[in-house]
C-alpha cells in the first residue's frame, strides 16, 4: 500500500536535513509501530506523508497505492484515504466538531465522486462511532479541539478517523496524554478499525500502547532513518535498553 524509498527531507527555508534516507514498506492489513527518540523525525515523516508545507523532499520517493503520493495536494491525499491523527491537534474556534466532521466527510466523498451522506445518516454514523469512544453529545457540539483536554483531543482524532474510514492511518503519539482507561478505549477504537484492506503506522514512545494495539512490525527511527526493524519483541527490548545502542549505529 505504501512504499517509502530512500526518503530525504529538509526544511524548506533552512538547510537542515530531517529525514535522511528513510525506507519503509507497509502492506494492507498491517500495523507498523515506529519508535525513536525525541527529534528523530517521526512527526516530520507523518507530515510529509500528509502533505504539510515547509518541507522539501530532496531525494527518494513515496508511492501510495501505486501513485506518487508526494505529487498530490493534502486534500487529494485525504480523499484517497490517507489520515493523520495529529500529535498536537489544532483548534478551530466556532466550528462545531460535528459540523467539521460533516464538511470533511462530504468533501472527501465529493472528491471521490460519491454521494454525500444525508444529515440523518451522517448523525447516526457519528453517534454510533462516538459512543464507542466514550465521546458524548456535548463534546460533538463544542468547537473543534477548543478547550479539549489532552485526552479529549486524542479521542476526537480517533473519532475523526473512525468516521472518515481511511485506508492508511498514521497515528502520531495518540497515546500521550491519555489516562489508563482512555488508553484502553482509544486502543479498542483503533483495533476496531483494523481490517485486511487498511494499514496503520503507529508512532509511540511507549511499549504499553503496543500491548493493546499489537503491531506486526516495529521500527526504530533515529536521526532520520530506520535503523532497526523487528517484531513486537523489539518494543520490549527498547523499553528495557533505551535507544543508546541505535543512536551510535545511526551516526
Amino acid at each position, binding site marked *: 500500500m505504501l512504499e517509502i524509498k530512500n526518503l530525504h527531507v529538509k526544511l524548506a527555508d533552512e538547510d537542515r536535513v530531517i529525514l535522511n534516507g528513510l525506507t519503509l514498506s507497509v502492506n494492507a492489513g498491517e500495523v507498523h509501530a515506529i519508535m525513536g527518540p525525541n527529534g528523530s523525525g517521526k512527526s516530520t515523516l507523518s507530515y510529509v506523508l500528509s502533505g504539510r508545507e515547509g518541507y522539501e523532499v530532496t531525494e527518494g520517493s513515496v508511492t501510495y497505492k501505486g501513485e506518487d503520493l508526494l505529487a498530490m495536494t493534502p486534500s487529494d491525499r485525504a480523499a484517497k484515504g490517507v489520515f493523520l491523527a495529529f500529535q498536537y491537534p489544532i483548534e478551530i474556534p466556532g466550528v462545531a466538531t460535528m459540523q467539521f466532521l460533516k464538511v*470533511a466527510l462530504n468533501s472527501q466523498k465529493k472528491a471521490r465522486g460519491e454521494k454525500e451522506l444525508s444529515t440523518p445518516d451522517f448523525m447516526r454514523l457519528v453517534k454510533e462511532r462516538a459512543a464507542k469512544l466514550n465521546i458524548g453529545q456535548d463534546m460533538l457540539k463544542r*468547537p473543534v479541539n477548543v478547550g479539549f483536554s489532552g485526552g479529549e483531543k486524542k479521542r476526537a482524532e480517533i473519532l475523526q478517523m473512525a468516521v*472518515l474510514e481511511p485506508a492508511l492511518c498514521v497515528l502520531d503519539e495518540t497515546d500521550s496524554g491519555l489516562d489508563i482507561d482512555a488508553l484502553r478505549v482509544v486502543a479498542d477504537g483503533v483495533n476496531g478499525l483494523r481490517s485486511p484492506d487498511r494499514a496503520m503506522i503507529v508512532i509511540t514512545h511507549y511499549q504499553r500502547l503496543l500491548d493493546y494495539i499489537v503491531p506486526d512490525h516495529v521500527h526504530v527511527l533515529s536521526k532520520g532513518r530506520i535503523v532497526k526493524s523487528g517484531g513486537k519483541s523489539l518494543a520490549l527490548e527498547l523499553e528495557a535498553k533505551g535507544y543508546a545502542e541505535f543512536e551510535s549505529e545511526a551516526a
Partner: protein
Amino acid sequence: MADLDTIELVKDIEVDKYKYGFTTDIESDFAPKGLNEDIVKFISAKKGEPAWMLEWRLDAYRRWLQMDEPAWARVSFPKIDFQDIYYYAAPKSMANPKSLDEIDPKLLETYTKLGIPLKEQEILAGVRKQGEKSTLDDDGNEVVAGRVAIDAVFDSVSVVTTFKDELAKAGVIFCSISEALREHPELVKKYLGSVVPQGDNFYAALNAAVFSDGSFVYVPPNTRCPMELSTYFRMNAKNTGQFERTLIIADKGSYVSYLEGCTAPMREESQLHAAVVELIALDDAEIKYSTVQNWYPGDAEGKGGVYNFVTKRGDCRGRGAKISWTQVETGSAITWKYPSCILRGDNSRGEFYSIAISNGRQQVDSGTKMIHLGKNTSSRIISKGIAAGRSDNTYRGLVSAHRKATNARNFTQCDSLLIGDKCGAHTVPYIEAKTLSAQFEHEATTSKISDDQMFYCMSRGLSQEEAVALIVNGFVRDVLQQLPMEFMAETQKLIGISLEGSVG
C-alpha cells in the same frame, strides 16, 4: 488570440464569482438624467404623492444643495458626478400591478433566478419547502423553515408584496412606501424623517429628495408579526442610482423581524446606492432587522461595483424597547454604513451584530452608534471584520452616554481576521460617557488564519477554499446565529463565495 482566450477566461471566473451579475432585458421608464427640482417633482408626481410630501422632498433637496459629502471615512473613490445619474427607473410594463398575474414574467424570472420564488410562495400560500436540517444544529432536530413575506423592489419601484392578506388579518401593514403614502398617509407623515431627518447627512438628504420606493411596516400594539418580513432589492438599469427608504414602526408591546437582501448586475460603471432606514420601537416593542448585503463588489482590479452609502437608525422611543441590527456585508465596492440605535426610553436596549467581509479591492467603513439617553439602557456590539485580497476593512463605532443615562451599559467586541498580507483591518472606537455610572467595556482582537489551521482542515479533505470558508464561518459564528434561521445556511454559503480567490 491568446489574449482573447484570456479575456474569456477571466470573464467566466468573474461571472462565476458573482453569480447575481446578470442583467434583465426589460424596457424601463427613466426620468431624464441629472438632478434638479423638476426631477424631484417628476418622481413625486409619478408616485401620485400628496402635496406635503413634495414639499418635504423639495426641502430635503434644498438642504442637500448646501451640504458636502462626508470625507472622514477611510475610503477613497473618484468624485461622483451627481448630474450623471438617473434618479428614477421603473420597468415599463408594470405601471400599477395589482397582483402577480399583471407582472412582467421577465421580472418574476429575475427573482426566481435570484432564489426568490415569489410565485411559488403565493401558490403554496406560504407552505415553504422545508429547509434542510442545519448542520449547526447538532441534535438532529428537524428545523422547519418558517414563512417569509417578501416585498421585492426592482430599481426604483416595488414590484410585489406577498402574503398581504394574511398579514392584514393580524393588523400588520407591510407594503411599499409609495403605497403607504397613498393608503396610510397619517402614519407616514407622523414617523417619516423622525429618526433620520432630511438634513441628517449628505446621502440621507439626497435620499429624502429622490427616494423612489422601499418598504413600510406597521405592527399594531401587542401583536407579534406572524411571519418574517423581507425586502429584496435589485438594481438593474444602467447608470441608475437606487434610493430606497424603509420605515418600520413597532407599536407598544409588538414584535417584528425583518430581513433585507440586495444584489445588482455587474457593470463597468459604478452604481450609487443611498438608502435610508428608520426604525421606531415604542414601549416594550422589539424590532429585529437583518441585512444580507451582496451588491456587486466590482472586479478584481476595483472597476465597477456599487457605492453603498446608507443611513440606518433605530429609535427605541419607548420604555423597554429593543432594536437589534444584524448585518452581513459581503458586497459593494465601497460600504459606508453605521446602523445605529438611539436608546431614548428608559430600560431600552440596542444591539449590533456585524459580519463585514472585504476581498479584492473592496473598501468597508462600517460600524454603529449606540446613543444612551435613557436610564438603565444597555447595548451590545459584536463586530467581525474579515479582510482578504487588497481590501480595507474598518470598524468605526461610537458609544455615548448622556448625562441622564444613569447606569448605561455597553459591551463591545471587535474581532478582525486577516487573510493574506495585502489587506488592512482597522478599529476606530469612540467612547463618550457623561455620567459616572456608565459602564462601557471594549474588547478587540486581530488575528490571521494560521497555516496550521489550514493544513489541519486540508488533511481532512477540505480544499483550500473550503478550509477558508469553514474557518471564517467559525470566526463569525456568534453573529451568524443572530440571523433568522431561514437565512443562515444561505449566508454561510455566501461567505464562502465572497472569499473565493482569497488564498493561494
